[in-house]
């Protein structure tokens, strides 16, 4: 009987938390952080540059203008050519005039600096380019330098004569820019201090966004899992109109399609099953009429002319075959529909097998090894079908002697083993996996055998109904060996009722037999049927 096919459970998808760097949430958070860090860094850098430039620009503009103003106001008083003392007083005046800033001044005349106690240290060297601009090209120049770790502004300014011509006098100044640098530093550290909380705060929207993405994703995963379990009516709730909603919608469409096609398949399958059952059922009525009269034909065949007699015998014989085939088909339909029932009884297995052989007059042709007192709880009619099929099969397709061996179960063991072996050539290894298939013909060229082609399939189903298994193999000594392996005590672990198999109307009867008698006077296990 084909059970409704179960969906294999898919491996569970990873739960996402142990894989710190691979989870969607972690990736989103990291992404957010990177974006935030980059933007904070960029902002800081730009701010730093702009602020620094603006501050220094302003300082140097003021300083240059100041110096120019001082030089312009003091230079005219300088005699030409100036003495060292004149230059020194000019220098000190200039230095003093730097009210707002502590600049150090050095005055050069004809390119030579005056050595003096004040002002710039004597070893202080102005960059050559700067001096060249001042003394050769007579343009004021300034330049920012960093010496000994402290930044300063160097200004070089040629002093012009009153008539505007260049003079040999030039003034150099050095301004420390520590304060400005301090301001810029403060700006930068402010930006840095600001960036850190920003980064921390970024995690919150990142987590929120991740949650917004992950919740539907998790829902999707659970729904997919349910679909995989076969719950095809699973649907997702569609919220909003974003891509995730689209995904949910698509998922729902997919599930609906899947459900439709599964329903369609089931419908087709049950239609096919019902068709087979109906066909066999319909065939039964005409066969009942024909079977009733075949022996009339057989009796009278002898008195007919030979041709008619052969025809009549043929019809009689084939009617019998047809009847058996329809019976087998109906049995198979019952298995397929899950309507096959076990009628359990306590039997002596050896006796049951002996009776099977007797009923078919096989005692002479079959060697038996049947230990007494193996009692089992099973459906004797079904066991009869199984044994008869296997022995018949061994006699027809194997070769005599055929042996039926019952293995007495070990004390405490709960399996019943029945072995049917023949002495034929064995079964082709390629055929072996298919021997229990319906209508499987080992050799397509083989003439149609006595059976319906369903015998072994039905035997198999009968064994399965008992919760057992059947095996086909070739024995090392040659010949095929079929092994029936059944639980010894059937029905004490009730088998699962198949879907669609109605409970017997009297299924409650004798379900709880007391030591003496039973619940409502039924016989042993009357009407107790294990549907499988």
């Amino acid at each position, binding site marked *: 009987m084909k059970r409704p096919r179960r969906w294999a459970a898919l491996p569970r998808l990873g739960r996402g938390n142990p894989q710190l760097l691979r989870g969607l949430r972690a990736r989103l958070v990291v992404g957010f952080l990177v974006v935030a860090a980059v933007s904070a860094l960029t902002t800081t850098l730009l701010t730093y540059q702009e602020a620094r430039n603006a501050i220094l620009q302003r300082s140097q503009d003021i300083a240059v203008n100041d110096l120019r103003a001082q030089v312009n106001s003091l230079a005219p008083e300088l005699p030409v050519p100036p003495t060292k003392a004149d230059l020194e007083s000019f220098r000190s005046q200039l230095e003093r005039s730097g009210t707002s800033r502590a600049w150090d001044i050095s005055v050069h005349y004809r390119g030579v600096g005056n050595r003096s106690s004040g002002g710039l240290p004597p070893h202080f060297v102005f960059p050559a380019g700067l001096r060249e601009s001042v003394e050769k090209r007579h343009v004021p120049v300034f330049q920012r330098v960093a010496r000994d770790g402290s930044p300063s502004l160097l200004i070089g300014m040629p002093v012009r004569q009153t008539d505007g011509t260049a003079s040999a006098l030039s003034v150099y100044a050095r301004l420390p820019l520590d304060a400005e640098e301090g301001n810029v530093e403060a700006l930068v550290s402010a930006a840095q201090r600001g960036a850190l909380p920003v980064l921390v705060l970024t995690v919150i929207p990142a987590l929120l966004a991740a949650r917004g993405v992950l919740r539907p994703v998790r829902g999707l995963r659970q729904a997919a899992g349910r679909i995989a379990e076969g719950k095809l009516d699973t649907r997702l709730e569609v919220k909003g109109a974003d891509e995730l909603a689209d995904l949910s919608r698509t998922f729902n469409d997919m599930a609906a399609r899947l459900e439709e096609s599964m329903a369609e398949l089931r419908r087709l399958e049950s239609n096919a099953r019902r068709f087979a059952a109906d066909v066999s059922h319909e065939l039964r009525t005409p066969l009942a009429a024909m079977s009733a009269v075949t022996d009339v034909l057989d009796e009278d065949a002898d008195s007919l002319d030979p041709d008619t007699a052969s025809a009549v015998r043929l019809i009689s014989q084939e009617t019998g075959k047809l009847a058996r085939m329809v019976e087998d088909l109906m049995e198979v339909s019952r298995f397929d529909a899950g309507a096959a029932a076990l009628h359990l009884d306590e039997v002596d297995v050896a006796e049951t097998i002996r009776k099977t052989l007797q009923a078919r007059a096989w005692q002479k042709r079959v060697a038996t090894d049947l230990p007494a007192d193996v009692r089992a709880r099973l459906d004797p*009619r079904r066991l009869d079908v199984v044994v008869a099929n296997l022995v018949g099969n061994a006699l027809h397709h194997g070769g005599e002697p055929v042996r039926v061996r019952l293995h007495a179960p070990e004390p405490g063991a709960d399996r019943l083993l029945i072995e049917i072996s023949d002495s034929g050539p064995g079964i082709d290894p390629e055929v072996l996996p298919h021997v229990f298939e319906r209508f499987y013909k080992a050799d397509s060229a083989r003439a149609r055998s006595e059976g319906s082609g369903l015998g072994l399939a039905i035997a198999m189903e009968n064994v399965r109904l008992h919760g057992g298994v059947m095996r086909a193999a070739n024995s090392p000594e040659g010949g095929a060996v079929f092994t029936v392996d059944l639980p010894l005590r059937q029905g004490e672990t009730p088998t699962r009722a198949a879907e669609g198999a109605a409970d017997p109307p009297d299924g409650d009867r004798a379900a709880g037999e007391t030591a003496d008698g039973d619940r409502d006077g039924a*016989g042993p296990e009357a009407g107790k049927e294990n549907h499988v």
Partner: protein
Amino acid sequence: MPRVLLIEDDAAVRDGVTLALRRRGHEVAAAASGEEGLKVLPGFRPDIVLLDLMLPGKDGFEVCRLIRAERQLPIIMLTARGDDLDVVLGLEAGADDYIVKPARGEVLEARIRAVLRRTALPAEGTPAAAEPGPAPVETYGELAIDRAGLVVGKGGQDLALAPSEMKLLLFLSATPGQVFSRQQLLEQVWEHSYHGDARLVDACVMRLRTKIEDTPRSPRYVQTVRGFGYRFGPL
């Protein structure tokens, strides 16, 4: 020769079975429906009824019950094996046996003969059966069994037992206390093969108990031996 009433709605089956039985010397009356069969019954006075379960109008179960209400003549159902429910319901309705369609004429004949065989002797001859002369009426508790006259009474009242019930009771009571498995009873009482349908036995035991026991739920006469079968007594 036994007179057979066949109630079967399919014309071909009706004709086929009628033909097969007539060839074997039976007198056959055929009816196409339950109603018609019930009409024919009193006039024809058959020895046995072959009853198809699938009938238009009144179905086989109901016809079976109606016949049983008045008569204790043997009834054999025509059915398909494994229409399990049908078999159980048919047996509960009082049928004595059933035949699986399609069946050969010789099978029909064998079943009819088996059901009609009136005496059921236990396998091993009992003293009671071996004694010459009229067998005495045996009494077990309130039950009085007259083997020769095929009468069973309880508390002075004759009980109306269907043929299979009568045969089963006679068989079991011939060796009180001996346990018979259902397979054995099938062979001995119903003359089925060993692998017949044990539900025949169970259904028959149930029907028998409702007639002979004071409390069918705790039977006194036909007792269950769990895992083995049934026995009569011991009281």
